[in-house]
């Protein structure tokens, strides 16, 4: 038996290789650098790695290759755009993660135990969160460019495992945090099982694990359609679980609420980009010719996601849960871009992912600022009158909410408008009508929060807005600026996306 050495084009893979290298060095830093220096070193290392990776993405943005990693990965325009978005979101999230207040000093200690107290008094920090983030980001970077089923699964696990861990690292309410991490892990494994099951069926259908091979079988139509349909359905379940579409959404409110808020921000924004990126590639290339079979199903899922997300969000009393349901509704909006299955839909989905991801990080960043002596205050009733106490936090939050609601002059409007018009062009009228209706419902609860913050008198209960640290302020300001610029003058970004977003097969 002979082995051929794999031929890899290192330049094209460099963004991912840089990230993995950075993550490994991060692990070494944990082992060899003194406790006092670690936070600074890790932050610098992580930020440097992300920036370098982003620079590489920028430099190879025009390249196209199917064979960069022996046919397992594909490099093209959408890949560059999605990877760039993930990296930008990761960078602004890192500022937030770097604020030490959010993480437990000793993840291994039992909640409330003596060890935990000791660690708190010693001023320990879990700097492991930095390499974990880098590993997750590498997984997310691979997910949308994977071009065979094995690679897709590896990437899925690679992005999920660090997230499961990080969800359990919260400093306050540690039990809830650990519970959410466990839930996320169990349900994630369940979904992964579906995913693998579907992958097996697809292999059975086409006799190939590469996207190209499956695609050719779909076009040829020679295989057994039942195998294809079951495989497609189960694979899709794995992906829909990650984006939190109904009925595979149930983990997300609990996890969003339990996880440390910076992790929630990162997870909500970046995972969506990665998972939708993978879905775009799969549905726009591999399954494009079996459109007849999946469009009605995905449309139905989009419709119930939008409606359920918006309706349930209304009755939420907790700001993080409200944002979780809002993200479920947004998963529905984004699915209409998948249904569109045209160039406009591709461009719109990519724009929407970036705009929504940035606004999400910004929104959660504001959530980290509102606190009392026991930590973050997520009860909406205690957000009353926030506008008077902290105009900065309240107006930034209002801006992000308006962006979620899709009000003009924010990025959300451009995103919603372009994604719905793409779907309308395709003829998905029912989806578009539901989308607009649920946007109206959603606007109700977004604006209710704005009313709460600005037009309701405050209750004196010791809720204070922390003076934002430079890092958190950076996250909020950068997100706000991007949200506004994309809303007021989106043309250059839209043109950039349109020119670049072409899948190669």
């Amino acid at each position, binding site marked *: 038996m002979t082995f051929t050495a794999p031929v890899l084009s290192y330049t094209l893979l460099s963004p991912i290789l840089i990230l993995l290298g950075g993550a490994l060095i991060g692990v070494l830093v944990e082992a060899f650098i003194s406790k006092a220096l670690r936070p600074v070193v890790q932050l610098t290392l992580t930020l440097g790695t992300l920036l370098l990776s982003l620079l590489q993405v920028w430099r190879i943005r025009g390249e196209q290759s199917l064979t960069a990693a022996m046919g397992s990965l594909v490099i093209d325009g959408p890949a560059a755009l999605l990877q760039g978005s993930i990296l930008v979101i990761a960078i602004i999230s890192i500022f937030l993660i770097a604020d030490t207040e959010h993480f437990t000093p000793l993840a291994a200690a039992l909640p409330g135990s003596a060890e935990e107290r000791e660690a708190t008094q010693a001023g320990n920090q879990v700097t492991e969160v930095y390499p974990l983030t880098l590993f997750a980001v590498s997984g997310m970077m691979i997910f949308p460019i994977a071009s065979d089923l094995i690679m897709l699964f590896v990437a899925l696990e690679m992005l999920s495992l660090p997230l499961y861990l990080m969800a359990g690292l919260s400093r306050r309410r540690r039990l809830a945090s650990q519970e959410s991490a466990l839930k996320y892990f169990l*349900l994630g494994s*369940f979904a992964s099982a579906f995913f693998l099951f579907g992958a097996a069926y697809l292999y059975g259908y086409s006799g190939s694990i590469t996207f190209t091979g499956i695609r050719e079988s779909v076009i040829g139509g020679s295989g057994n359609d039942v195998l294809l349909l079951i495989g497609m359905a189960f694979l899709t*379940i794995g992906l829909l679980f990650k984006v939190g579409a109904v009925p595979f959404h149930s983990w997300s409110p609990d996890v969003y609420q339990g996880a440390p808020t910076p992790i929630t921000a990162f997870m909500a924004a970046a995972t969506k980009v990665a998972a939708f990126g993978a879905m775009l590639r799969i549905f726009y290339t591999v399954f494009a010719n079996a459109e007849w079979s999946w469009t009605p*199903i995905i449309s139905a899922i989009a419709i119930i996601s939008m409606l359920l997300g918006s309706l349930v969000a*209304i009755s939420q009393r907790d700001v993080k849960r409200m944002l979780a349901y809002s993200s479920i509704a947004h998963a529905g909006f984004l699915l209409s871009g998948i249904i569109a299955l045209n160039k406009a839909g591709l461009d719109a989905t990519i724009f929407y992912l970036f705009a929504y991801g940035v606004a999400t990080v910004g929104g959660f960043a504001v959530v980290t600022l509102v606190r009392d002596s026991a930590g973050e205050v997520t009860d909406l009733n205690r957000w009353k009158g926030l506008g008077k106490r902290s105009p900065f936090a309240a107006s930034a939050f209002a801006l992000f909410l308006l962006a979620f609601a899709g009000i003009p002059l924010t990025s959300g409007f451009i995103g919603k408008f372009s994604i719905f018009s793409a779907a309308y062009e395709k003829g998905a009228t029912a989806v578009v009508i539901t989308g607009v209706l649920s946007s109206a419902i959603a606007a109700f609860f977004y604006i209710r929060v704005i009313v709460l913050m600005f037009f309701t008198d405050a209750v004196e209960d010791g809720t204070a807005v922390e003076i934002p640290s430079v890092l958190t302020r950076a996250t909020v300001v950068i997100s706000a600026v991007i949200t506004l610029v994309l809303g007021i003058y989106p043309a250059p970004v839209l043109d950039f996306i349109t020119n670049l977003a072409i899948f190669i097969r």
Partner: protein
Amino acid sequence: MTTSSSLVYLIALPLAGAVLLLLGGRRTDKWGHLLGTAMSASSFGVGLYQLMLMLDRPTEQRPVSQKLFEWINVGEFKVDAGLLLDQLSICFVLLITGVGTLIHIYSISYMSHDKDRRRFFAYLNLFIAAMLLLVLGDSYLNLYVGWEGVGLASYLLIGFWNQKPAYATASKKAFVMNRIGDMGLSFAIMIAFATMGTVSFAGVQEHAHHASEAALTGMGIMLLVAAAGKSAQFPLQAWLGDAMAGPTPVSALIHAATMVTAGVYLITRSNFVFDAAPTAQLLVVIVGAITLMFGALIGTAKDDIKKALAASTMSQIGYMILAAGLGPVGYAFAIMHLLTHGFFKAGMFLGAGSVMHGMNDEVNMRKYGALRKFMPITFVTFGLGYLAILGVPPFAGFYSKDMIIETAFNAGGAKGIILGVTTLIGAAITAFYMTRVMILTFTGTKRWDDNAHPHESPWLMWLPMAVLAIGSVSSGYLLSSGGALENWLHPLFDHHAEHEHHLLEPIVVSAMALTMVAIGVAIAFSKYARQEVSSVAPENVSIFTKIARQDLMQDRFNEAVFMRPGQALTTTLVAADEVVIDGAVRGVGQAAMSSGSALRGLQNGYVRSYAALILVGAIALIGAIWVVVQ
């Protein structure tokens, strides 16, 4: 067309002044008034320079234009922000900046004790800039910007002393009534775009021949509504009297010489519309005729010197509107009367301000009397303005008003007779109430309180009055000798329809007019100079005087016809909004919330239920695919 790059400075200079003074805040208090005056004066300088250039060019090349930037470009709708300076607008530019500068100078002294003088000058500069934009815009839409700008400046200046609730109300009243006119203007612009696809003056002029008469009549009527609002013409005249709440220089500049004449400008500028829409043109004449009588009658009963002058302004603008409604033969005379009126009325308002300045801001003429001795310069300049408005030769009003009366008679038929007689009677009433103002203020015995110490105003105040008095004396002769203004404006108007027929010789008209004036003066003399004037207004007067004192019931009319039904309508609508629309919204909201709460039950926190839900979802998905495939 000739282009020029310096037109924009006309507007930019005063605008820069306004911006500097408003943003500069208290730091500019010390020299703000000087800057404001300098800006207005330099704008006047640019205007003069442009006039020189224009005189040098042959007739057909006199208009100049400047494109500033592409303003709107949406589908078929393209509008450039462009300026146009032609023979008509240069008249206005010089009037606005010239009189404006004089009034700036006057205000330096008049407002010297006001702690907000800087803000006052900022608003004055803002007004000058907006008014220049109004007359320089090369399309209805550009004009509209200036139109709204002067409305804003007028609102700010009427309510300048808004610490007095009555003054604040007056500014609000002016603003609201002007909105009705503004609506007319926007409708006119929409009609122009809908029927002709353009809103520029040149474009509308070119396409007016192809447009239906109905469309042009509609546009003309809407333009007339706009003009009535801005120029205080019937039926939108009620705000002008209250507008006298503003400081007197404002009344002189905005509510006598310039802004209120914007309606005349609009109608003259739109001559191509009105010439092709006889019905609208007839309405213009009717509105002018009604207003000139209306204003004159109100003027007879006013004891407040500024309100008497305001009524007179309304009446004199009625003359101009009437002339503008007479078509190509009348436009030049409308503009001529507008210019001469700008001099003598501004002069008289400044005179009134001077009197008030010396009399502790007293405005009631019954508390004046015998001021001639104490304020000789004010008396002389005011007197010259008085002679001018009466139309006594050779003062300015003689030329301009006689022309209008003559043109009115020459309109032909019953229309000519009615209009001619109306203008003549108007002239008589004008003579009556203006003589009354003169007698009550300057002659007779003193009726003021002991704590008033009348004195002549400082030179900064009387100098502008003197300059305006020179204008009151000479402008009529200068503008009409050899048909100067007529020939100057001639290329702008369409003279096809012109047909010469003289009903009465000019000399006869002059004689009739002078006779009427003499009658008016005589009545005033017998009533006010021959007998003692009471320092309080007599109560037992005829019903007509009572009505005239109440401004011919204009406010009651508006209140009964517009305000109360309007209020009732809004109350009903608010109630309907609350019950029907809000009710529906709340109902939907309630339904959404309760369904949300019901669905929330699915989220019970148990992993096993979540996993079950995923499983159910997966089965449903397979089932659905099964259904689709079948």
